[in-house]
Every structure is written in structure tokens, then in C-alpha cells.
């Protein structure tokens, strides 16, 4: 009980501090005093005199970006938790379902092949691609006799992972085809940047989409936390505990696909978070989803805000794709948790 109470206090304050750090640290140095004045003006209607450009950067660029980074980190981590539990595969992550590959294809189809004739934006193209790829993967898995349905549990989980791999390969090939066919250096660089993730274009509009998606994902996961516990022992065990395996699995996979596609369409394909954060949190808080779900959401949020800060300041005058940072910083951090966690056992 002691642990639980401490944790409850820790979560919002950690998240708050991370968002504040994301707002305070950026490409250009803005004094802390200015930052506090801007926040006071906006949040409590204070009337401090501040430079309008500084005020805009802090409120419209950095704060919105930090909040969306948190939403994306949480959403991707939750998707990882759910898929790893449902598919009983430690390598399952949201991008395994073809979502990232499909989003990439959609994005290059719009920006490079010119699909949509300038009406369809890159984000919309990415979202459509993600949805299409995910639907194909699910159809393929279903045709193979399982899909999101019941079936023999191990076989079902295996089929959807194989379908995901096949779908990803197909869409990766389409992406490569479009890039090879028509991209010049400028476009290849633009799309590369996007494929590795990029939060520079984030504004409040995106937050109004990302926040409900992340919170919705979190609530759905929490609602089904006991079912997820049961799935950890396999679909057959879950069925024997009275869980509507077919329905619950379909709902959870669909919701997580939607959350991931929404995030990917806004900030690009940021790998690593969905795969590794759930594992790291399992080492820290255990396998029970009552703890694992909020812990993963929090860790994903804080991790992505941190990665975004690093991506902005690590090379002066240049912004690195956030996917590079998540992997370069995240992999060693994960290694430490992995080794320490194993030793503790």
C-alpha cells in the first residue's frame, strides 16, 4: 500500500516536471523568468509584459509539443503493453501490425508520388496508409484462420504476427518503390526525417486530437486490465475465466491500431517506445496490468518528452529526428534495466 500511494503522487508530478522541461528547453535560450511569466499570463490571466515572439514560442510551439510528445509516448507504450499481452509475444509492438509501414507508404504516396493532388495532407495520407495496412493485416490473419477472433490461442497469436510481418514487408517495398522511382535529394531527406519521427510541426490543433486519443486509449486499457491479465496466460485460459476472448481482443487491437495510427499521422513513425517501454516497466512494477498500464503510459510520456528535448539540443543549430534519439538513448537505458532486472531475480 505504501508503494501504491507514493506512486500515485509521483505520476502527475513527474509528468508535470517533464512537460515543464519540454517547455523550458529548446533550440533557443529563453530565460526561465520569461517562461514563468508567459505561463502565468496564459494560465492565470496575469498581465506580465513579455516579448510576443517569446510568448508564442513557449505557448504555441513548446508547450503544445511537450504535451503531444507525452500523448504519443503514452499511446505507443500502451499499444505495446496491449499487443504483448494479447499476442503473448515479447516482440509485439504497434508497428508490427503494419501500421508504421502503411503510414510511411501513405506519406510518401502523398508527398512524392503526388497522390491526392495536393488536397490530401501528409498526415492524412499517413493515417489512411496506416488504416489500410492494418486492415489488410487483420484480413490476412483472419483468412489464415484466426485474426482477431478466437481459435487456438498460440496459433492465433502466431498468425497475426506473421501477417503483420508480411504486411510490413509489402508496404515497406511500396515505400521504397515510390522513393526509388521519383524522389530527389530534397524529398528523400524530407521523407527520411518524417519516417524517423518529427515533432516540429506540432501545434495546439494536434493536441486536441492527440490528447483524447491517448486518454481514450488509457481508459480502454484500464477498463480491460483484468482481461489483459488473463490473456497473459493465453486466450484459452482467458476464455475459461469467462472473458469474451474474440470480442475483447478485437476491441483492444482496433483501439490500439487507431491510437497508433493517429499518433503516427501527426509525428511520424517513432520506433522503440512501443516495444521497449512495456518491458522496462514490467521489470519495475511487475506483470499486473493495474500497475503496468499507468506505469507504461507515464514512462512512455516522460521518455518521449525527454527524447524530444535531446533531439532539439544535442546538435546546435540542427534538429535530429526523434527516432534516432529514442533508439540511441533508449537502447542503453533499456540494457541497464534488463541487466539489473535479471540480476534481481
Amino acid at each position, binding site marked *: 500500500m505504501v508503494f501504491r500511494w507514493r506512486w500515485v503522487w509521483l505520476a502527475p508530478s513527474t509528468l508535470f516536471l517533464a512537460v515543464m522541461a519540454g517547455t523550458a528547453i529548446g533550440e533557443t535560450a529563453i530565460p526561465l523568468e520569461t517562461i514563468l511569466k508567459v505561463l502565468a499570463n496564459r494560465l492565470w490571466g496575469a498581465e506580465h509584459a513579455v516579448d510576443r515572439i517569446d510568448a508564442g514560442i513557449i505557448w504555441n510551439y513548446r508547450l503544445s509539443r511537450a504535451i503531444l510528445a507525452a500523448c504519443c509516448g503514452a499511446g505507443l507504450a500502451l499499444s505495446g503493453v496491449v499487443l504483448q499481452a494479447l499476442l503473448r509475444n515479447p516482440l509485439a509492438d504497434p508497428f508490427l501490425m503494419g501500421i508504421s509501414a502503411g503510414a510511411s507508404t501513405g506519406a510518401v504516396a502523398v508527398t512524392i508520388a503526388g497522390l491526392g493532388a495536393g488536397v490530401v495532407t501528409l498526415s492524412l495520407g499517413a493515417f489512411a496508409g496506416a488504416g489500410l495496412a492494418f486492415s489488410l493485416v487483420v484480413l490476412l490473419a483472419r483468412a489464415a484462420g484466426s485474426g482477431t477472433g478466437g481459435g487456438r490461442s498460440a496459433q492465433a497469436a502466431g498468425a497475426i504476427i506473421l501477417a503483420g510481418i508480411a504486411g510490413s514487408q509489402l508496404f515497406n517495398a511500396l515505400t521504397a518503390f515510390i522513393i526509388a522511382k521519383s524522389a530527389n535529394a530534397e524529398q528523400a531527406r524530407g521523407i527520411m526525417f518524417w519516417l524517423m519521427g518529427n515533432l*516540429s*510541426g506540432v501545434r495546439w490543433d494536434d493536441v486536441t486530437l492527440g490528447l483524447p486519443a491517448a486518454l481514450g486509449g488509457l481508459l480502454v486499457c484500464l477498463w480491460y486490465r483484468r482481461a489483459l491479465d488473463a490473456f497473459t496466460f493465453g486466450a484459452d485460459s482467458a476464455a475459461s475465466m469467462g472473458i469474451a476472448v474474440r470480442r475483447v481482443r478485437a476491441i483492444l487491437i482496433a483501439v490500439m491500431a487507431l491510437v497508433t495510427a493517429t499518433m503516427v499521422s501527426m509525428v511520424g513513425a517513432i520506433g522503440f517506445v512501443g516495444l521497449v517501454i512495456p518491458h522496462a516497466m514490467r521489470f519495475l512494477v511487475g506483470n499486473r496490468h493495474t500497475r503496468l498500464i499507468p506505469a507504461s503510459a507515464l514512462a512512455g510520456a516522460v521518455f518521449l518528452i525527454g527524447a524530444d528535448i535531446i533531439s532539439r539540443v544535442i546538435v546546435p543549430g540542427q534538429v535530429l529526428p526523434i527516432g534516432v534519439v529514442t533508439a540511441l538513448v533508449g537502447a542503453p537505458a533499456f540494457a541497464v534495466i534488463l541487466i539489473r532486472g535479471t540480476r534481481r531475480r
Partner: protein
Amino acid sequence: MASDTEYPLTLTNCGTEISFSSAPEGVVTVGQSATEILYSLGLSDRVLGTSVWFNPVLPEFSEVNAGIERLADNDPSFEAVVNRRPQLVAAQYEWHVGPTGSVASREQFHELGIATYVMPADCDTKDNSTGGDGTRTAAFSPTHVYKGITELAAIFDVQEAGKALVTDLEAREADAIAKAESLELPPDLSAVFWFSSPDSSVDPYVAGRLGSPGYMMEKLGIQNVIQSDEEWPIVGWEAIARSDPDLIVIARMDRRRFPADDIEEKLNFLHSDPVTREMTAVKNGNIIEMDAHAMSATMRTIFGLEMLADSLTTLSFER
């Protein structure tokens, strides 16, 4: 008087030795710069096909250009170029025809007996092996464009026309610089050149300090707020807005691959984004539209310089 060309003519072009036994009968251009230079030299009857267009052709050549096949708006395929049976391929960028050229490497053309010429402005002071749009190793100067004009004129044995074109461009350059000097502009006048962006509000491609926009700014006494040596670095709006330039020059182009290729989209962003709309240049209406092609290291750089100098006479820079 410029002399006639003596063949065989051998020259070193972007690190490759090329040789001509006579003036090429047919040429395919990969890049608008090479195309317009050949038209300006009166060689349009030798052009078998064109490709890679950012802007409409110069108005004086619209009729001539209409009669010449456009192989592709962007990168043509190797076979499309070869099929025109040219004796020369003249390219604007090494990324199209170069060591890792998207159309082909120079060797691939040479193996078929087709000579290649890459505009020196893209390689003389530029390292294209760094990826992206390359990195300038020294500041661009129109002398590299003039060198390209002079060499193409020599290859085609029209040296007189080459000399006349260079003399004209040099005079226009000097006039533009003199005009800006007469304006007595503020000594710390600053600007940013925005080419495009991969998506509507993400970090844009802006001109580094050593490319052709850097040259324009330097000649007219304007400071570039971007310090990068890269040709078109990606710089965050946060950094651009905070540097608050007096002048924003935005590229106008026909290409529509990124939303921000559209100049209306650029203007809309500048006026509606909560941060950029607070910038001095936006508030004072100091936004200048310039053809994208003038922002590349081409003959049109001089026209861009002229246009910029003319615009400066109409703007006020009160802060």
C-alpha cells in the same frame, strides 16, 4: 573578339575530364539552368529534350521551349534521355547526373559515347557527397555560372554569344549592387530565404549562408539570419522567429510535392501561425516573392539579385 573553338576540345568538368571532337549536334538537358543557358546562347535548335523544371521558362524563350519535348518535369529516366540519341547531356545538379546520380552516373552515359557536362555552379565550391542538397565549401559566386556559360559556349563553338551573355549578366549584377548601395539601408538589415517545407508547419528548408541567396544578401548588404554552410538546411521556426529578420524572401515554384511549395500556403502560414505572424517582417509586410529557380546557383541568380534590389526600394524597415 572571342575566337572559334579548336577541336578536339578537352576540359575538366566537376572532376571529370571530357573531350569533344566537334560541337555536339544534339543535347538533352537535365535541369532548367542548363536549358535556359543553351537557349540564351541561341542553341535551342540543338536541344532534343529537357527535364527538371521549377518555374516556367524565361518569357523570351516560351515559344522556343514549347516546340521542344519535355521528357519529365522532374528526374527523367536514363533511357528517356538516351532514347533522344544526344551527343551531350547537360545537367544542373550532380544529384541527377553524378557519382550517385538519380538519372545515371556520368560513366553510364560515357559508356554509350554520350558526353556529360555538369554546371560548375553545383560542384566548384560544393561538396555533394554530404547528402541532402550538398554543402557549400566556399561562398557561391556568379563566376561559377559564368564559367559554365563560357565552357558551354566553347563546346558548341559559339564563344561570341557566350561572351555577350556574360557581359550582359555582369552589367546587370553591377547595376543591382549600385542600386542597393544608393538606398543607404540599415547596416544590420537581415533576411531569411524560405524555399519550402516537407509538411505545412514543420521545420522549413531555408537558405544557408554560402548558396546563391547568401550571395544576393552579401552583395546587397543584408545579413542572413541562418548561419549554416549547408545549401538548404532545415531550421526550426523557433530559431527563425527569434532571429526576427527584417525581410522574408519566399520561393515561388510550379512544383507541387510539398504543401509549402505553393506560395499561397507559405503566405498563409506566415500570417496565421501564432508565432510567425508576430515577426517584424510579417507585420511590416516585408515579404518578397522570388522564383525558386533564382534561388538556385544559376544565371537567374542575377535576375533574383535585380528583383531583390528593386524590392528594397519599395520597402521600409522601421522597427
